[in-house]
């Protein structure tokens, strides 16, 4: 049906064309248009947050309802989310009603953030230190020239970036040798490669943007017709 597909694609094209052309128009109207659009999208971004929250909660509700494997753990998602939402909203209401704010008052909302979210969030990714070390020791082998080059570069960077390298270099009268080697590696071959990758990605982004504007790329529309 034309109003389900054609009109949205036309909107996308027109919006993209306006966004592109306003970049090159120095008139204040172009600035005002940009300001208005970015304000709209900033407000819409707030609604988008709830989309993500609903999706996650829906996934866990489904696990509980269907008694899927490990469904009991999904209950804790709701416990955590409820505790935060209830405490947060309660504090909002108290703040609105209480005439004099008390900055040192105990906040359960902040407490849960500081002593549940922060430790868990910080720890989850720190587990990777062990996994990386274990994987590197067990599988990182110089099987060919490319892998050997990768290994040498990794060792130079890992060693050059820590103070131990300056200490050991100092024993040989050249404290700056290893850090400088790491710097040169980062600022020349690494930088050149990253620039090549960045250029490739940027060209890809432009071509993908054009595909979206011309309606060739439609995956963002979601399923259906």
């Amino acid at each position, binding site marked *: 049906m034309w109003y389900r597909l054609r009109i949205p694609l036309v909107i996308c094209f027109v919006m993209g064309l306006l966004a592109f052309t306003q970049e090159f128009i120095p008139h204040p109207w172009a*600035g005002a248009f*940009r*300001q208005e*659009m*970015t*304000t709209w*999208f*900033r407000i819409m*971004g*707030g609604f*988008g*947050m709830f989309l993500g929250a609903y999706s996650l909660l829906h996934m866990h509700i489904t696990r509980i309802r269907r008694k899927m494997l490990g469904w009991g753990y999904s209950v804790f998602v709701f416990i955590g989310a409820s505790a935060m939402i209830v405490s947060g909203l309660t504090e909002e209401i108290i703040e609105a009603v209480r005439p004099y704010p008390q900055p040192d008052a105990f906040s359960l909302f*902040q407490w849960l*953030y*500081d002593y549940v*979210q*922060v*430790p*868990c*969030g*910080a720890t*989850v*990714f*720190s587990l990777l*230190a*062990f996994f990386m*070390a*274990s994987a*590197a*020791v*067990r599988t*990182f*082998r*110089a099987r060919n020239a490319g892998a050997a080059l990768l*290994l040498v570069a990794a*060792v130079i960077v*890992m*060693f050059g*970036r*820590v*103070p*131990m*390298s*300056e*200490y050991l270099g100092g024993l040989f009268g050249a*404290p*700056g040798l290893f*850090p400088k080697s790491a*710097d040169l590696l*980062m*600022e020349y071959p*690494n*930088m050149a490669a*990253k*620039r090549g990758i*960045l250029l490739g990605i940027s060209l890809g982004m432009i071509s993908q943007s054009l595909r979206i504007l011309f309606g060739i790329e439609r995956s963002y529309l979601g399923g259906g017709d």
Partner: protein
Amino acid sequence: MAAPRGNTKWQTLARYVAYLVVAVAVLVPYVLPLPLTFKPSDWAKKLYDRVEALPEGSAVLFSFDYDPAAMAELYPMSLGLLRHCFRRNLRPIVMTHWPNGVGLCKQLVEKTAEEAGKTSGQDYVFLGYKPGGSNLVLNMGESLQGAFDRDYYGKPTEGMPALAEVKKLKDIPLVVDIAAGGTVEMWIAYGRDRFGFDLGAGCTAVIAPDLYPFLQSKQLCGFLGGLRGAADYETMLDKPEDATKGMQAQSLVHVFLIVLIISANIGYVWTRVVRGPED
């Protein structure tokens, strides 16, 4: 090609040995401190010098775009930067693009302000969080007070002394993005290259190599990479704390890992010489 069954127990043992090595290497320096010193990197020095060069009373915008997962690396450098600003009587304007980082930003700002005896709204402003990403940056570029009409504490930003003569991003001489994700590139493209302010960056070690092209193209004026960057800044501020202490453990772990990797490779090469190349 599946490993022979008999190797599974050895593989498990090797895994736990690697875990133990890492754990011991991290813990040893807290029992036996190592006498290690280091020179700050050139890029860290450039960022420090840029902040030093700002006239007293200048506004500096900090975008602390990280959450608790990256706080070990980025919290110390954020602390260092805010302390430096307060020491120099600059006016930090603090915000974040990450909702889960607001609590950390609040802690940072309140802790450093209390240390320096600074007042919110007068000497600094904590704007909090707004969604929008690049759209928010474009918004701020046209009107800061339009994008954030109130600060985190609900005070109107219009007429706020901490935002005196700061109406848009162009009025801010230096913006520093402390990032755990792709916000540095966003600030470069949608902020720095459009509105002409100087942009410095601090980031996790994972994304640090990706920012070198922007350093060489001078789109970034200075850069702190990972815990080492935070330790460099603490050294320059002459206030060694968590990051500097952490470098001792970092050194030991890196050396242990390098020795293990090289030994494993020597063993591998020896095996290939003795047994011949693998299929």
